């Protein structure tokens, strides 16, 4: 596990019961990273990271009080996020809310970009309203991973025996 973490670049830690902190270095100047993270035409190119999934909506109204909405569609349905920008300091800082539809409770994301020697140090602090919500966010990431495995299982099962497809429903892996 530690070897894997060393070669992977994204660090995820839990600084408190209600927070998730993500840090990573990008080998590009800050203004390019900021652009790639805030222009819809660019976000469309990296947001959707799972095979068999496509991004159907990518709306960004980058101003304080402006809204964004990202929707991806995969084999098990639609996944949608939206939020409102609360603070924008290009190219170094964005604070926004984030709602995982259709859940009514949102989180607050504080993203900062720092540039040193042509590299950009990304830091994203996610604040949840309570521990349950924080843990739910991480669990949702797991479900995404499980989806991938299940898609594969489903294909394999189907190729062996079409009747077994029902066994590989996503609910089966979430218990």
């Amino acid at each position, binding site marked *: 596990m530690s070897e894997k973490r060393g070669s992977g670049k994204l660090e995820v830690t839990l600084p408190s019961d209600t927070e998730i902190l993500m840090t990573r270095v990008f080998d590009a100047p800050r203004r*390019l990273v900021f652009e790639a993270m805030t222009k819809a035409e660019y976000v469309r190119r*990296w947001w959707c990271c799972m095979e068999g999934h496509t991004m159907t909506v990518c709306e960004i109204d980058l101003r304080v009080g402006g809204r964004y909405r990202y929707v991806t569609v995969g084999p098990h349905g639609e996944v949608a996020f939206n939020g409102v920008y609360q603070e924008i300091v290009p190219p170094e800082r964005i604070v926004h809310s984030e709602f995982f539809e259709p859940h009514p409770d949102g989180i607050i994301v504080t993203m900062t970009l720092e540039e040193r020697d042509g590299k950009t140090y990304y830091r994203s602090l996610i604040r949840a309203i309570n521990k349950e919500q924080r843990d739910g966010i991480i669990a949702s990431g797991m479900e995404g991973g499980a989806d991938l495995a299940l898609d594969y299982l489903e294909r394999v099962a189907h190729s062996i025996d079409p009747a077994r497809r029902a066994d590989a429903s996503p609910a089966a892996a979430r218990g």
Partner: protein
Amino acid sequence: MNMERLDATFAALADPTRRAIVARLAKGEASVLELAEPFDMSQPAISKHIKVLERAGLIARSRDAQRRPCRLVVAPLREATDWLERYREMGEARFQKLDNLLEELKEKENRHVRKTR
């Protein structure tokens, strides 16, 4: 995935003394006395921490011997790190695509700089 067990694991590891105990036990089993040694704490205080870790299923104690050494139970720890690791992998997959895009944007900019010179 058992969320209650995860909660218990993270709650047990939320204390620096208990994390130090877990780190010590990762090197091999130890008695309560041995575990108490590096800490400026009474044996009952250490015993209390050990009970929390035991209840969370992170350590086990053998019954027979007089000194009842503690040892680490690895499975819940692995479950907890896997849980976070899966979340991390999702984010990393996304950011690797962003890396590719950034390379492209950098190249585009370099071409533009060369042209305008």
